Every structure is written in structure tokens, then in C-alpha cells.
């Protein structure tokens, strides 16, 4: 089976069909996807804005990151689970979509960005924890986070409109 045929099979499964054709399940799942986005990316944005020196400058970087992390992870879990259900119901339509594929490339790049940040400059956070202006690499991680999440939101919305 080709990837497309697998996607067609997923979409045609009874769960996929039920989600797609239900009056309430699809809108509720999609509503949860947007709320998950606001909770996770909203809190990620606060962290990134701290890193680039745009908000919470008086607070320590570790205070902002550590205290927002549960919200970011919880929101991400909500977004991830609802995203799987949305994919389940429309896999064959989503698979060929360029914007959908680009979205996942950027999510992967965001994962790499976060991993690099945590494994390099964040290791020495004690030295710059209270600085309003963080080191260059931390600011870069913040800017990349903001810009790439914007691309993800753009691509996600583009996919819904079937605009390639």
C-alpha cells in the first residue's frame, strides 16, 4: 500500500468516518485543537518574549520557563490528541496538502530549536538568569520560536481552507 492508500484507509475507518460525519464531535475536537493551541503556544510565546527581552524582563528566566512548563505541556497534549483525531477523520485530504507537510517540518524544526536551546545556552542560565537582555543564542532561540510557530499557525489555517 502507498502512503496515500494508507491515509485513505485511515480516513475510511469507522472512527474516522464517525468523527467526520458527526454533528458535534468534529466541531468540538476542532475547538479543543484551537484551545490547546492558545494554551501551549500562548505560554511558549511568553517564554520566547522573555528570551528576546520583550516581557517579564524583571523576572528570572528560570522562573518564567519552569512555572509555565506545565501549561505548555498540558496544552500541547490537548493539541496533539485533538490533532490526531482530526487527522484520523481527514487523512486522505490532509496527506497530499503542501501546507500540512510544511507544518510538520516546522514543528520538527521547533523541536530541534528547543532541544538545542536546552542542551546548550540554557545549561549556563545561572550566569544570565536575571539579565533583561539574554545572550545572543537565547535571543535567537526566542525569535526562531516566535517566527516558526507563526508559520505553523499559518500552515494549519491554510490546510483547513484546502489552499495547497
Amino acid at each position, binding site marked *: 500500500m502507498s502512503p496515500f492508500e494508507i491515509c485513505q484507509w485511515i480516513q475510511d475507518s469507522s472512527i474516522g468516518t464517525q468523527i467526520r460525519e458527526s454533528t458535534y464531535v*468534529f*466541531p468540538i475536537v*476542532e*475547538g479543543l485543537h*484551537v*484551545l490547546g*493551541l*492558545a*494554551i501551549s*503556544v*500562548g*505560554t511558549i*510565546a*511568553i517564554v520566547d*518574549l522573555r528570551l528576546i527581552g520583550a*516581557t*517579564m*524582563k*524583571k*523576572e528570572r528566566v528560570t*522562573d518564567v520557563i519552569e*512555572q*509555565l512548563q*506545565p*501549561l505548555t505541556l498540558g496544552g500541547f497534549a490537548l493539541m496533539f490528541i485533538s490533532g490526531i483525531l482530526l487527522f484520523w477523520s481527514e487523512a486522505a485530504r490532509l496527506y497530499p496538502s503542501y501546507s500540512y507537510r510544511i507544518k510538520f517540518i516546522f514543528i520538527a524544526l521547533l523541536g530541534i530549536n528547543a532541544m538545542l536551546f536546552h542542551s546548550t545556552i540554557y545549561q549556563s542560565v545561572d550566569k544570565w538568569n536575571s539579565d533583561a537582555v539574554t545572550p545572543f543564542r537565547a535571543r535567537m532561540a526566542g525569535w526562531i520560536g516566535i517566527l516558526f510557530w*507563526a508559520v505553523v*499557525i*499559518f500552515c494549519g*489555517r*491554510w490546510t483547513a*481552507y484546502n*489552499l495547497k
Partner: protein
Amino acid sequence: MNLYPLFKWFDTTPISVAIRNSTYIFPVVEVFHLFGLTLLLGTVMVMCLRMLGLGMRRQTVTEVNTQLMPWSVGAALLTIVTGVLLFLSEALKCYGNEAFPWKMWFLFGGIVLYLLTASRMKNADSRLNPAAMKVIAILMMVLWFGVAVAGRAIAFV
């Protein structure tokens, strides 16, 4: 009062027609609507959780609110400006839509609550007692998340 002529007029402004006639303007405006919504709800939720004592407890309520509120207000303005553009392009669809008035009432409530509490929020710790803070936080969450949920429902009802 019959609002139909008003909505009909909104539906036919040059801006409404221009957005409707383009394939891309509406989605692009909606992307910016989502940028605003994400930042608005994210910052509102963090402030509310702090007021409820459920998050960011190493900072005072005042420290959290004074630093995040400008971003909430900016994000709200972006969401409202883009929202007006989206509305103009489909005003008649909104007129007959059951979710739309809900969204407008939640939005109205959210703005009124903001105007009533904004000055005290700047010095929340000294000017609000903990009980009042919790009531404001719950109302704020219900109203702003209500705007988002009712807004999403416009596409489905």
C-alpha cells in the same frame, strides 16, 4: 429593533466586497486573528491562574499582571481589528448565525470587565482582596474563552 438593514450595509461596504472577491485575503486575515487569539488567551490564562493561586506563584499578582497586560491588550486589539474585517466580509452570514450574538455578548462582557478592573489590576496585590481577585479571574477566563469558543462555533452552527 431590526438590525437586518445595518448588517446588510456592513455586508456591502467596499472592504466587505474586496475581501469576498479575493481567495487569499480572508485566510490571511484569519491567520492574524489566530495569532492575536493565541497570545490573548495565553496571557489572560496565565494572569488568571496567578490570581487564583494556581500558577506563577514565585511572582506577585502585580508583577505578572503589569508585565503581561500590555500584551493581552495588544493581542486583543489585533484580534478585534482582524475580527471586524472578517465580520464585514460575511456580515449577513453572521446576522442569521446563532453563535454570533453569544460571541458579541462575551466580548462585550470581557471589555467591560477589563475597563472596570484595569486600574486596580495595575496594583492588584494592594487594591484587590484575594476573594475579589478570584472572582475577577474566573469571570475573565469564562468571558475570553467564551469569545473564542462561540467564535469557533460560528463556522459550525
